[in-house]
């Protein structure tokens, strides 16, 4: 299906695990958001690489071209990117308000202030 072999999957899994690890291991909320972004981006890469067809042209009707790459995954990921942007914005806004009301964005500090968090 594609000329990428399995390398796209290797990259996808590496990025995904890196993102998950960042989310779990770091106590800083901003770093968690960065991890979340890396995690989501890995899935975007996965989808985009799905759509690639070896030797395919860009999916715009052109005379004399019969083989096109699949544009649908790209469109889907466009939506997912928008979702990612919105999630990041909400996450950052929450972080700012947490900083304003608790004075810290380190999860360990927050936990010390209130064990129920």
């Amino acid at each position, binding site marked *: 299906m594609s000329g990428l072999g399995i390398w796209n999957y290797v990259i996808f899994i590496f990025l995904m695990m890196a993102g998950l690890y960042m989310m779990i291991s770091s106590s800083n909320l901003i770093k968690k958001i960065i991890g979340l972004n890396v995690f989501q981006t890995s899935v975007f890469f996965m989808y985009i690489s799905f759509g690639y067809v070896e030797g395919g042209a860009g999916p715009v009707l052109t005379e004399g071209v019969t083989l096109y790459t699949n544009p649908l995954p790209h469109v889907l990921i*466009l939506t997912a990117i928008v979702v990612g942007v919105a999630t990041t*914005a909400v996450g950052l806004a929450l972080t*700012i308000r947490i900083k304003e009301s608790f004075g810290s964005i380190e999860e360990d500090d927050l936990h010390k202030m209130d064990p129920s968090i």
Partner: protein
Amino acid sequence: MNDHLILRVVGKFLIPYVMLFGLYVQFHGDFGPGGGFQAGAIFACGFVIHTLLFGSRSTEQIVSIGFLRVISALGVLVYAGVGVASLLLGGEFLNYNVLAADPITGQHIGIIVVEFGVGLTVASTITLLLMIFAERGLPS
């Protein structure tokens, strides 16, 4: 940022072209690669550069936060309005065929208006996000 003369001059020079390119991607989306999301993001880049170079206060003199909020809501309404129009004209939701006598013309009209709505919302929302975040840090 006052002493970064080169950045300011180059930035001022770039902003109109960035925005023009945004408009091109917006309205050429019907025939080639492009569309509302990409165009909105590019167009908003103009405002982002402006905010970075001249500060959010001076950007707010050009587009106020209240104005951006209206535009972002308006974009959604334009998008949904096309759907409602096609409902009222007897087609399914977002069926552009019924928008004109000829289905092909209808598809053109439909996608252009819908993408325009998307572009409005995306451009204003990205600018809005930046300005709201930037304003939070300013001494009031």
